[in-house]
């Protein structure tokens, strides 16, 4: 006999599955529909006139490749920048007892509370003066900075979970504190590093507001901004192109997440139970 709770769990999973995957499915098939079919009511759930035209055309009617390049540069670089500043900060806040440590940590967190719209104008002026407007490198610095609190808070909790005796023992073995950090702590927080890197990558990859304001030329835009240009232009809302381009856009993230999902699951649960 099947248990009642098992049936309930299966039903819950089915509902959750539909909730999650139906929008994706509908977006996916929309990219195969013709311009006319999109407007059908009731909507079709399997395309009547199946076409791959829009999957090809999105690469040519706009500089999608440049959007891609900009997105990759901005998000990968932002991961590197936020880790470069976040790891030392997290380590210091986890291992050293200094005055106002709690205040420092809270202040770092408050940067995350800030509504992005409040700083976008000053940042625009700043970027213009720094001659970083319209460049993915400029965006990378901003993404790196706004995501720094996440890196610090997540990694700090990972580092706290590593017993300090391990580093001490390594120093007593005859190594410097820096070597203890690179040889002992860094390898042990690897799941956390992977998890937080992916999180930052995904957040930067899909960021819209800063990218929309801080890029102006067609060649300087990122994917989210580029895709948005299919909306309300001379052809109205080109849903099939939007969906095709969006799928191209999220494909690399899906592949990366699938490839390292084992590490990710461990990373997200590690530290909950010792």
């Amino acid at each position, binding site marked *: 006999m099947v248990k009642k709770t098992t049936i309930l769990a299966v039903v819950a999973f089915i509902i959750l599955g539909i909730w999650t995957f139906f929008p994706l499915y509908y977006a996916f098939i929309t990219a195969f529909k013709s311009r006319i079919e999109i407007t059908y009511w009731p909507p079709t759930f399997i395309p009547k006139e199946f076409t791959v035209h829009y999957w090809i055309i999105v690469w040519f009617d706009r500089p999608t490749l440049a959007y891609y390049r900009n997105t990759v540069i901005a998000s990968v670089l932002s991961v590197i920048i936020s880790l470069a500043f976040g790891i030392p900060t997290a380590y210091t806040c986890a291992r050293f007892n200094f005055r106002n440590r709690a205040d420092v940590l809270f202040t770092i967190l408050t940067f995350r509370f800030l509504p992005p719209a409040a700083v976008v104008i000053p940042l625009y002026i700043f970027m213009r003066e720094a001659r970083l407007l319209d460049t993915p490198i400029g965006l990378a610095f901003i993404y790196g900075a706004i995501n720094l609190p996440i890196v610090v808070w997540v990694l700090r909790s990972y580092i706290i979970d590593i*017993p300090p*005796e*391990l580093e*001490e*023992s*390594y*120093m*007593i*073995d*005859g*190594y*410097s504190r820096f070597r203890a950090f690179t040889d*002992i702590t860094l*390898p*042990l927080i690897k799941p956390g590093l992977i998890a937080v890197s992916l999180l930052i990558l995904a957040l930067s990859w899909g960021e819209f507001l800063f990218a929309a304001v801080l890029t102006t030329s067609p060649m300087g835009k990122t994917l989210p901004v580029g895709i948005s240009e299919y909306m309300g232009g001379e052809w109205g809302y080109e849903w099939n192109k939007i969906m095709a381009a969006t799928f191209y856009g999220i494909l690399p993230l899906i592949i990366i997440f699938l490839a390292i999902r084992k590490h990710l699951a461990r990373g997200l649960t590690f530290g909950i139970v010792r």
Partner: protein
Amino acid sequence: MARLRIVELTKVFGTKKVLNNISIEVPEASFTSILGPPGAGKTTLLRIIAGVEPPTSGKIYLDDQDITLLPPKDRNVAMIYQTFALYPHMTVFDNIASPLRARRLSENEIKKKVKDIADFLGISHLLERFPRELSGGEKQRVAVARALVREAEIYLMDEPLTNLDYKLREAARAELKKMCKELKYTMIYATPDPLDALAMSDHVYVLFGGEIVQSGPTRKVYDFPDNIDVARYFSFPAMNFVECTVKHMDDKVAIKMPFTDIIVQKSEIDISEGEYIVGIRPHELKIMEKPSISGVSFKARLRLTYVIGSESIAYADAGETSLAIHVPFIYKIAEPKEVFINLDPMKILIFDKEKRKRVWPR
């Protein structure tokens, strides 16, 4: 091997004085125990000696070199942690090799040294494994191997036996003692367990609340505790304490306890009149069917016995006072019964009731 000297060391964490004016001298090739309850400051003391924690004030000398401010890597001190602190992402081989690699030995030399120490400790078959694949006893051996693989001036051990089960502890005690003797190592051993200190150490420092309350050769500290706290902590089984009044009668001294009086010549126990606390070790009490002619015998009601291996602990009520008695063989009672308990007056300890200090034997 070296001699360690700590002079007036103090450590303050925030507003809390964790170590207060500690002075310790550890002779070369000796086994010294730091005995104290959890939270007494033992681990902090070892961490300061190892150099991973700076002292607030005071000096540490290795032979005659001042090492107070040296970083740990320049001290050549080895330490075994209570948790063993094995590096989880390294194999047993790499764990043991770690201090040798820090000294930039050639890989061949490292292989040979790791193999030798692994053979010595019987862990050669574990070298390819990771710490998570080891049992508690095996981890302990690996931690010992990592400390012993290099020739350190001092070996610090922070309760390395606490995480082991009873049988392993017995075996490990004998092994550590043997190693210290054979290899002529200088060892400092922190433990909350009086048995560890008794079984292994030449010298003992008793640490309570960050202060050294008594120190000296282990046997001497055990036999002549300076005060009631040391007597209570450093005794196995725990000592009995009884309040008493001392009265002088001509050339005799009467020690009046609630359940019996001890009357001795002044030449035997010479203390002034007043209120005192008598300390009686459980193994100085004997259960008798009839009163004995030697010593002092008194009536008591035997309430409970329990057997530990081949010996027993009995609890008896002498009037209102409960006494623990150590019996060196298997001794069981079916139900409470009246017995006589015999006590040798020359084996008692007498403490001042107010100051809690030992007044007899002097």
